[in-house]
C-alpha cells in the first residue's frame, strides 16, 4: 500500500494551484457567473497550452499521456478554485468516452481539437425526470438513409451554448431491458434545428434545455455501437462520478481552510472564536468529512488508473462526496455567522454549487443503491 503521490503529481498540483490562484481568483468566478459565455476563452487557451485538456490523451492525439489519477489531482485544484466553464463537460463527459469507444477516425478528428482547446463539448442525457435511468431516455433517433434523425429534448445540458458538439443519448430501439436500444450521437451543436433555452440555476453555471427537431446526424457520428450505448454510458457515469468527486473534494478542502482561518482570526468575547469548543468540534467534524471524501476518491481513482475500476468504490466515493460537500458548506456558513450569508463572502459561492454537483453522474440515492446491490440486498 502507498498513500503518497509521486513527485510529478505533487508538481502538477502545485503548478495547477499557482495558475488558478493567478488566473482564477474569486473575482473571476463572480465575473463569469454574470458573463454570457460563462467562461474566459483566454484562460481556456492558456489551460490548453499547459496541456490540461489533453492531460490523459496519448501523445498521438496531442496529449500528455498522464494517468487518470493525475487528472483527479488537476480537478481537485479546479474544484478548490471553482473554475468556471466547460472543462468538466468537455473532458470528463465527452473526451474520455471518445478516447475509450471512438473509432480511430473519430479520435483522430476530435481529440486533437479538444487537446488544443479548439473544441468544446457537452453531454446530453437527462430528460424530464432528470434521473440517470435508461427508462428515461425517450429522445428518438430513426435511421433514414445515411443519417439518423433525432427528435426530442434534453434537460440540464451544461455549457450547451458554447459547445461545438453535444454527445446526445438517444433511443434507436426497444429491447427486453430499457438499457437495450440506446445509442450515443455526436451532434453538431450549431447545426440547424438544435434549439437552446436557458434553465436558470442557483449555481451560477450555464445549463440548458436543448431541443432536437428532426436533426440529421450522419451514421459516422455514432459513438460506440448502435443500440449498445448503455455500456458507454456506464463508462461515462463512472468516470464522471469520480471526476466530479475530485472537484467536490477540492471544494470541501477550500471551505474547511477558509473556515479554520476565519476561526483563528475572528474575535468575540475577547478571544478567537476558534478557541471555543463549539466551533472547534464543528471544524473537527468537517475535517473528518474532508478526509473521508479524499480517501474514498483516491481509492476509486486508483482503481481506474490501474485498469480495474470498481463501481462499488466509485459509488461509495460519490455518495460520500454528495453528503459531505453539502454538510461542510452548511457548517461553514454557520461558523462564519452573518458574514457567511452575504454576497461578498466566498462561502456562498461553494454552497450555491452543491446542488449541481450532487446530481452529476448520480445523486446519493442512485449510488446507495449500487452499494446496496453490492451488499447482496
Amino acid at each position, binding site marked *: *500500500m*502507498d*498513500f*503518497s*503521490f509521486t513527485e510529478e503529481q505533487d508538481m502538477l498540483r502545485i503548478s495547477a494551484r499557482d495558475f488558478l490562484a493567478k488566473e482564477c481568483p474569486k473575482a473571476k468566478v463572480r465575473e463569469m457567473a454574470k458573463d454570457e459565455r460563462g467562461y474566459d476563452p483566454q484562460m481556456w487557451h492558456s489551460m490548453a497550452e499547459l496541456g490540461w485538456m489533453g492531460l490523459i490523451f496519448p501523445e498521438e492525439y496531442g496529449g500528455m499521456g498522464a494517468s487518470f*489519477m493525475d487528472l483527479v489531482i488537476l480537478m481537485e485544484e479546479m474544484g478548490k478554485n471553482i473554475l468556471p466553464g466547460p472543462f468538466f463537460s468537455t473532458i470528463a463527459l465527452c473526451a474520455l468516452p471518445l478516447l475509450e469507444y471512438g473509432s480511430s477516425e473519430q479520435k483522430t478528428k476530435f481529440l486533437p481539437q479538444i487537446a488544443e482547446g479548439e473544441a468544446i463539448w457537452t453531454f446530453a442525457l437527462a430528460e424530464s425526470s432528470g434521473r440517470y435511468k435508461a427508462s428515461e431516455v425517450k429522445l428518438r433517433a430513426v435511421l433514414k438513409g445515411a443519417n439518423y434523425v433525432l427528435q426530442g429534448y434534453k434537460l440540464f445540458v451544461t455549457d450547451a451554448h458554447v459547445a461545438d458538439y453535444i454527445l446526445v443519448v438517444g433511443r434507436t430501439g426497444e429491447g427486453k431491458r430499457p438499457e437495450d436500444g440506446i445509442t450515443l450521437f455526436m451532434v453538431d451543436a450549431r447545426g440547424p434545428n438544435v434549439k437552446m433555452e436557458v434553465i436558470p440555476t442557483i449555481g451560477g453555471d450555464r445549463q440548458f434545455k436543448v431541443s432536437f427537431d428532426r436533426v440529421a446526424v450522419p451514421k459516422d457520428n455514432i459513438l460506440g455501437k448502435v443500440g449498445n450505448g448503455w455500456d458507454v454510458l456506464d463508462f461515462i457515469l463512472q468516470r464522471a462520478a469520480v471526476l466530479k468527486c475530485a472537484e467536490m473534494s477540492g471544494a470541501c478542502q477550500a471551505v474547511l481552510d477558509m473556515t*479554520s482561518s476565519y*476561526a*483563528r482570526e475572528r474575535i468575540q468575547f475577547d*478571544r*478567537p472564536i*476558534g*478557541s*471555543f*469548543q463549539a*466551533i*472547534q*468540534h464543528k*471544524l*473537527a*467534524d468537517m*475535517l*473528518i468529512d474532508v*478526509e*473521508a471524501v479524499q*480517501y*474514498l476518491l*483516491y*481509492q476509486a481513482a*486508483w*482503481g481506474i488508473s490501474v485498469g480495474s475500476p470498481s463501481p462499488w*468504490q466509485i459509488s*461509495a466515493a460519490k*455518495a*460520500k462526496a454528495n453528503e459531505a460537500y453539502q454538510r461542510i458548506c452548511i457548517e461553514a456558513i454557520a461558523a462564519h455567522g452573518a458574514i457567511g450569508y452575504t454576497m461578498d463572502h466566498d462561502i456562498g459561492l461553494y454552497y450555491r454549487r452543491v446542488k449541481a454537483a450532487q446530481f452529476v453522474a448520480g445523486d446519493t*440515492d442512485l449510488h*446507495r*443503491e449500487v*452499494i*446496496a446491490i*453490492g*451488499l*447482496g*440486498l
Partner: protein
Amino acid sequence: MDFRLGKKELALKEEIRKFAEAELPPDLVRNTVIDGEFRDFEFEISMSRKLAQRGWLVMSWPEKYGGCGASLLEQTIYEMEIAYWGIPGAWMGISGIQWVGPCLMMFGTEEQREKYLPLIASGEKDGVWCTGYSEPNAGSDFANIKTRAVRDGDDYIINGQKVWTSAAHRARWCWLATRTNLNAAKKHQGISIFIVDMKSPGVTVNPILNYYGRHHFNEMFFDNVRVPASNLVGEENKGWYYLMQSLAFERRSIAPTTYGSLKWILEELAKYAGQTEYEGQPLSQNPVIRAKLADLAIDLEVLKMFAFQLAWRISQGQIPVYESSRNKIMGDDLMRQGAITGAEILGIYSQVDPDSEWAKLNGAIQGAYLGFPGQAIAAGTAEIEKSIIAQFRLGLPKSY
C-alpha cells in the same frame, strides 16, 4: 498511490479465516463490546496461547521479543480479521500488546524489555496487563492525577486510587501513571510511569460492574505499595510524553477492530434482511433498510481507508499527530451507527439478552448497542479527540 494488498497480507487473511473456522465454536456469543475481555478467562487464555504459537499475538514486534517482525499493515489486517471472526483472547487485556510493549520498546530499559516483552508474547496469564490512568478527579483532565510515587532508597512508594481500570482483576502487571513532582510548573510535567506487580502488598482491586452487570473494569487502591526503582519507565517526570504516545497507540487500534466487527455485522445483517419476510417480501427490499445499510457500508469503507492510511504513515517513520483521534471518532461513531441500524433491522428481537438462545446474530447487535457508549468514552471522549484535531491539525487555539 497504490491500494492493493500484497500476497503476504492476502495469505494472512486466509490463514486467519482457517484458524477461526477450526478453533471457534459456531455459537460463540459475540458480545465483547459490552463484556470486555476475560469473561471466560481459561478459554480466552487458551486462545491467546494458540495465537502466540502462530506468531500472531504480537506479530509486529521483533523476533527477539517474541514477535515476527511483521509490518504495521499486516498487523492492521490481523486486527481487522480477528475482530471480524470474533476470535477471543487476541488482546490479553489490550494494554500489554497494544501500548505497554510498544512503549517499552521506545522508552524502556533493555532489562525491562527482556523481562516483560516475552511474557506478553507468550499468551500466558503472566503476560496480562492493565493500565492505571483515570482517577476520580482525573478523567478527561488526565494530567490532574494525584496518585503519588515517592522515592525511598532503591524503591518508590506508591499511594493513591485509580478507576475504570479494565482487566485489573485478571492482570499480572499494571502500567501505572503517577505523580512524582508536586512542584512542577505545569501539571503534566510532574508525571512518571511505573511497572507495578499486581501481587505486591497494598494493591487492592474492587470490581465496578457496568450498567449491564458485567465485570469489565475496576477500581484499584495503592496503599504504600513498594516498587523497585528499576520499574520506572523512561525518565522521572517525563511520563506525560510516554502517556501521549501510549494513547496514540491505543486510539490507533480502534479503527481496525471496529472495522472488523462491523464488517461481520454488516454482512450478517444483509443476510438476515434477505431471509426475513415482512408483509410478503424480504426486509432487504425495504428502501429505508437498503439506504441505511448502504450508508453503513460507505462509512465502513472510510474507516478502512483511515485505518490503512494511519498504519502507512507510521510505517513511513512519520509521527501521526491527529490521525489516531480522527480514527477513534470515526470508529466510535460507526459502532453507534451499526448498533442502531442493526437494532432497527432486528426490530423487537433487538432487546433479547445477547447470551440467550433467542438472540439473533450471536448477540452481536445487542453487544454493540450496550457496548458502544463505553467504547466511545474509553481512551478519550469524542469531545477530547475533536479538540485534539482542532488544536493540532487545524491550528486553533487551546480551549482548555
